[in-house]
């Protein structure tokens, strides 16, 4: 996600479009990205590796924050 202090022009565009569709009462929209990363098993080492991926490529930590969430395949 863009850091809170960073202006998010895409989110602003969505925020501007919502009232035109009749969706009122929304005070802010921020737009980010979601990556679904599949691994055979989740271990501490794998999570550390994924954090490294996020820091080096998936996110630009100068302008974005990220969180890693583990979800089991349904």
């Amino acid at each position: 996600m863009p850091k809170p202090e960073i202006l998010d022009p895409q989110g602003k565009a969505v925020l501007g479009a919502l009232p035109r569709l009749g969706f009122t009462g929304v005070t802010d929209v921020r737009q980010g990205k979601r990556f679904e990363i599949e691994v055979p098993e989740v271990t501490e080492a794998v999570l550390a590796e994924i954090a490294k991926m996020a820091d080096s490529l998936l996110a630009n930590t100068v302008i974005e924050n990220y969180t890693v969430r583990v979800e089991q395949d349904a």
Partner: protein
Amino acid sequence: MRVGVVTFPGTLDDVDAQRAARVAGHEVVALWHGDHDLQGVDAVILPGGFSYGDYLRAGAISRFAPIMTEVIAGAQAGLPVLGICNGFQILVEAHLLPGGLLRNDHRKFICRDQTLRIENTSTAWTGAFAQGQEIVVPLKNGEGQYVADAETVARLEGDGRVVARYVDVNPNGSVNDIAGISNERGNVVGLMPHPEHAVEALTGAGTDGLGFFTSLAGVLA
């Protein structure tokens, strides 16, 4: 001097950058993103365009192209490197320059002849200009809004590392009207506007952009 111009998949302005370097009197070497070889060039230009389709973030994937290993090592050792537009985005993604470049605050792509003020003439790429000189070069970007945290901006301003500033209008919401910055040493410069499109009276907004390329002569002299 031998000036290398890197072409990535999706680069648009490599031929104009090559031409600008040639007009400025340099020998041009075309460099390929997939090579691990700078071919002994004396300076490198990362040109504008949409390398890797701007996928993920502008410059984020190009920053890991094979040749960037050599570009980054060279830049850290003092090799003059100029990133224009997408090249600027690649330089911030590579952490050779601080801050980031976001979508323009007004959300539209912009293309205009833009007045800039040259604020630092001690970099490898701006020595041919006079301090405070105003120039007009084309600007064309969708993600040209320069941002950095307050501490970084204060450091850039305090150290005179703002190389060029937008004059009259701020076309993309950049903090402090910043159009270009340099690293501490002054060999690496990132610039959002396009001086390579203003080097010949026939096709440019003028020839004001030429100074970025002729400046190199003073570096190795």
